[in-house]
């Protein structure tokens, strides 16, 4: 224990170094916990929004009567997986509740999973056990209950009994792979955050070790064997980690909780949407992960694994190996065809860029110094070189953090825009009214055309959904695609963002001069605007030019859009609906009119405005959480650089004081400090820029297509680069301010001039 006392005596003299290491452990644990907490929250809210708007299937009776419990029993007896869904409409103050039967849900694939998704309040709806919902409905108070039967499994398997048919049941459309893709990117970024925290921890630990080299040498001279010292150091780190990680994790949870509820409150007041309770992930995972990271990072040098020599030898090769790593990563990202390889490529590029960046700065500084005749410039360059080498790890962490923030910003903005476009495309109209099976949609269209506020207003269109066959031609195999027939062409279609189009595509479309295809089909068949495509509809072949390609936001099916007037008489649609934005027209008048035309009591009406508000709010929350997580990382990296710069400077302050001894005024010395630290942080920002852009590219153009088979648009945001540059400037100025504070106190002459403390070059 004498040895321990001797080792710890260093920290008794330099308590701030111990504090820096402990603070770094606490903050790193907090950051990563916060990030993983926020990620899981983002995942949960995205998942919730998906579940909320996902299209499910339900069972309808062919005779148009509402389904009853007897139907449920009949269907269950016939072996179909159906689940009762009892919607209880209550007076406005209490809102709507939905009763579901978790037992019946058991056949819906993952029973626990699917039930858990429904047990949280969403848009004022609470999910209850069906028994409680039934009781509520029975209690009266103007409550009205509607029973639906949800159906599991793909269409047509197994065939429903004669008296029933399958119908879509949804609160909105499916975000599908768009959400999945976003989450994959979030995961990639979570890994990056872990990497950055690891780098920061290592940097603080290494600095502490370097500062204690003198004491170690002394102990060695006193005859303490090296393994004993090493063992003591391991114990020290384990103890420190044990003390620091748990409070860090607690802090992270607190932080994420605070942020989450902050956003939640903002959202609640903005959208009147309650916050989705964050999934309270366990303590164990973050604590264990952080412990493992801390120990791995701090004790990496102690381990005698066999690959170490190889790594040493490679590292000895210096920049040639690094450059090779970088180039290999870049090349691999280009040619890789699998997701795993692409992730390897990203890792290689980051490793290469990370090792190269401080080296590049110090090499550039060396060249600048050589080229300059002014002694002071040569000194500045030499100091920049020293700083770049000594602060390499926190600088690289800052570079990674900046690159990550850049990529996330671009990605989130792209996703936001894409979600928005996708919502506009899917929810262009205010309302969707489903045409009941067997009802005459043309009669309804004629009726709508006679209604004064709607007639010729372009505020409604009919949608006919069905299938079309693309016959095998020109070497392309035959395939079935989804067919959408629209007509009349309403104003709402004009808001669609087309990827490629002839001039005035919708005019040509409404004249029946061609068709439109989605991105998937265009890619798969290598179709571009002007090419013609042959379709087989109801047995008739029909060839038309492609007027436009529209984005599909991840929907994997090929789609063809034709004008409704083009449909052959024999075409059998899968479903029909009307998209209506009644605007000034009275919706009730429209629905009651349609009910009269179709002679039906119930009308399936979807309120897109409501869905859109809901989807918007959950997406907003997800994006806010994502942004906040990256900003947190950046703050940590900046703080680490501050701490490291400050600790390093305590050891070197003597040499900066020499400038004052040599007759430089305090302001000039401060000016030199500002120049040094700002140059350093700005060059790191400059080096982070290509890395960030490349990361965006890799995520958008490589990871996404490989994971999902479609790509997002790639965009860069130069205004944001300037924001980051401003941030780097602030970090640099803060470091300079900290260093200047130390200069005011008298500096001790370094104990030995052999360069053990602060005399590095």
């Amino acid at each position, binding site marked *: 224990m004498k040895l321990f006392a001797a080792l710890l005596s260093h920290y008794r003299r330099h308590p701030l170094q111990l504090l820096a290491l402990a603070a770094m452990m606490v903050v790193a644990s907090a950051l990563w916990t916060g990030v993983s907490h926020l990620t899981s929250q983002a995942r949960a809210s995205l998942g919730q929004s998906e579940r909320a708007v996902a299209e499910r299937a339900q069972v309808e009776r062919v005779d148009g009567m509402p389904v009853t419990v007897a139907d449920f029993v009949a269907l269950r007896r016939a072996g179909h997986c159906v689940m009762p869904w009892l919607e209880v409409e209550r007076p406005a103050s209490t809102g709507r509740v939905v009763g579901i039967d978790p037992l019946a849900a058991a056949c819906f694939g993952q029973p626990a999973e699917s039930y858990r998704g429904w047990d949280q309040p969403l848009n004022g709806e609470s999910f209850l056990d069906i028994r409680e919902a039934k009781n509520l409905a029975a209690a009266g108070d103007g409550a009205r209950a509607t029973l639906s039967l949800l159906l599991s499994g793909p269409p047509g398997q197994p065939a429903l009994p004669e008296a029933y048919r399958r119908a879509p049941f949804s609160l909105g459309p499916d975000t599908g792979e768009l959400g999945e893709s976003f989450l994959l990117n979030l995961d990639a970024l979570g890994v990056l955050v872990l990497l950055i925290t690891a780098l920061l921890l290592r940097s603080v630990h290494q600095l502490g070790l370097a500062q204690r080299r003198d004491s170690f040498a002394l102990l060695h001279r006193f005859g303490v064997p090296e393994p004993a010292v090493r063992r003591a150091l391991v114990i020290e780190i384990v103890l420190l980690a044990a003390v620091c990680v748990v409070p860090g994790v607690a802090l992270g949870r607190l932080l994420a909780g605070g942020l989450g509820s902050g956003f939640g409150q903002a959202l609640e007041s903005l959208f009147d949407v309650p916050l989705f309770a964050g999934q309270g992930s366990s303590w164990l995972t973050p604590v264990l992960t952080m412990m493992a990271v801390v120990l791995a990072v701090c004790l990496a040098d102690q381990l005698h694994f066999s690959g170490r020599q190889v790594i040493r030898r490679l590292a000895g090769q210096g920049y040639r190996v690094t450059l090779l790593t970088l180039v290999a990563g870049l090349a691999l990202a280009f040619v890789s065809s699998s997701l795993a390889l692409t992730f390897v490529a990203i890792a290689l590029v980051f490793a290469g860029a990370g090792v190269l960046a401080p080296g590049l700065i110090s090499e550039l500084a060396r060249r600048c110094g050589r080229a300059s*005749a*002014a*002694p*002071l410039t*040569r*000194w500045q360059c*030499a*100091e920049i*070189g*020293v700083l770049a080498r000594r602060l390499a790890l926190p600088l690289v962490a800052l570079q990674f953090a900046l690159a990550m923030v850049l990529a996330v910003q671009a990605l989130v903005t792209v996703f936001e825009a894409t979600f928005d476009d996708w919502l506009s495309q899917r929810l262009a109209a205010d309302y969707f009214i489903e045409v009941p099976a067997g009802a005459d949609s043309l009669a309804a269209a004629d009726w709508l055309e006679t209604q004064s506020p709607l007639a010729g207003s372009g505020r409604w269109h009919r949608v006919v959904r069905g299938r079309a066959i693309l016959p095998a031609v020109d070497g392309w195999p035959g395939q079935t695609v989804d067919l959408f027939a629209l007509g009349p062409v309403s104003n709402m279609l004009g808001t669609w963002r087309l990827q490629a189009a002839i001039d005035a595509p919708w005019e040509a479309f409404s004249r029946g001069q061609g068709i439109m295809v989605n991105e998937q089909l265009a890619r798969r068949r290598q179709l571009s605007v002007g090419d013609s495509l042959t379709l087989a509809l109801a047995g008739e072949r029909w060839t038309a030019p492609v007027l436009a390609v529209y984005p599909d936001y991840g929907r994997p099916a090929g789609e063809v859009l034709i004008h409704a007037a083009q449909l052959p008489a024999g075409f059998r649609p899968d479903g029909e609906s009307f998209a209506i934005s009644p605007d000034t027209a009275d919706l009730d008048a429209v629905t009651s009119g349609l009910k009269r035309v179709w002679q039906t009591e119930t009308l399936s009406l979807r309120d897109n405005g409501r869905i859109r508000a809901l989807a918007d709010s959950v997406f907003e929350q997800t994006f806010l959480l994502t942004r906040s997580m990256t900003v947190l990382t950046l703050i940590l990296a900046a703080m680490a650089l501050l701490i490291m710069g400050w600790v390093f400077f305590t050891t070197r302050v*003597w*040499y900066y004081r*020499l400038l*004052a*001894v*040599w*007759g*430089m*005024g*305090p302001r000039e010395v401060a000016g030199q400090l500002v120049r040094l630290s700002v140059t350093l942080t700005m060059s790191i920002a400059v080096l982070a820029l290509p890395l960030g852009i490349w990361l965006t590219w890799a995520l958008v153009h490589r990871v996404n297509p490989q994971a999902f088979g479609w790509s997002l648009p790639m965009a860069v945001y130069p205004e944001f680069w300037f924001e980051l540059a401003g941030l780097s400037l602030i970090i640099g100025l803060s470091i300079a301010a900290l260093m200047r504070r130390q200069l005011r106190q008298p500096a001790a*002459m*370094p104990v*030995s*001039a*052999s*360069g053990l403390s*602060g*005399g*590095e*070059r």
Partner: protein
Amino acid sequence: MQDELLRVRGLAKHFDSGTERVPVLSDIDLTLGGGGSLALMGRSGSGKSTLLNLLCGLEQPDAGVISVCGELFNGRQPRNGRGDSRRWADLRCRHIGVVFQEANLMPAMSLLDNVRLRAGLAGQDPDDCSAWLERLEIGELAGRYPDQVSGGQRQRAALAMVFAMQPALVLADEPTGSLDRHTADDVADELFRLQAKTGCALILATHDAELAARCEQRLDLAHTAPA
């Protein structure tokens, strides 16, 4: 002795360590002519370094008057801080050279670059600097970094830096304190040789009686130290 370069009257200095007031110097008087030399003696902690710091404006006195190189600093006056510190900085830049026991060189620059930096700041021609290294017999080490040469060679380089600025006054704080006897003698020889040759004044803080004996005057702080 030539005309007066340095005159100190009634200089006093204390430090506050925590709540305790540590008096270090009181009522110091001294006078030094251009080209003269003075040895500061005294046991460890007697305030030699503190006095040297006061004489080049790196510390501010509690009381007393310092007149150096034609500039007058009155410690009793309420701080007219900025003006004083500017004048001190100018003096240190061009006329007062300081040599410490160790760590006189910027670690990230070669010996030659260090000398050029110091001379450049003093407004001297940086091109003469290798000549100064030659004169101190370390010309062939000009391109080496401070950690690549011996302690004695580093102190020689420090002397080259100071004399390259062509100072009127050199303040040396145990310049040979961390060297072995033989090397210390060599470095001291260089110091006195260059002082004589350039005609600057020298104040040398040392524990070494032999070294002190080579100076014209001697001030023993043990005798002036406050009780």
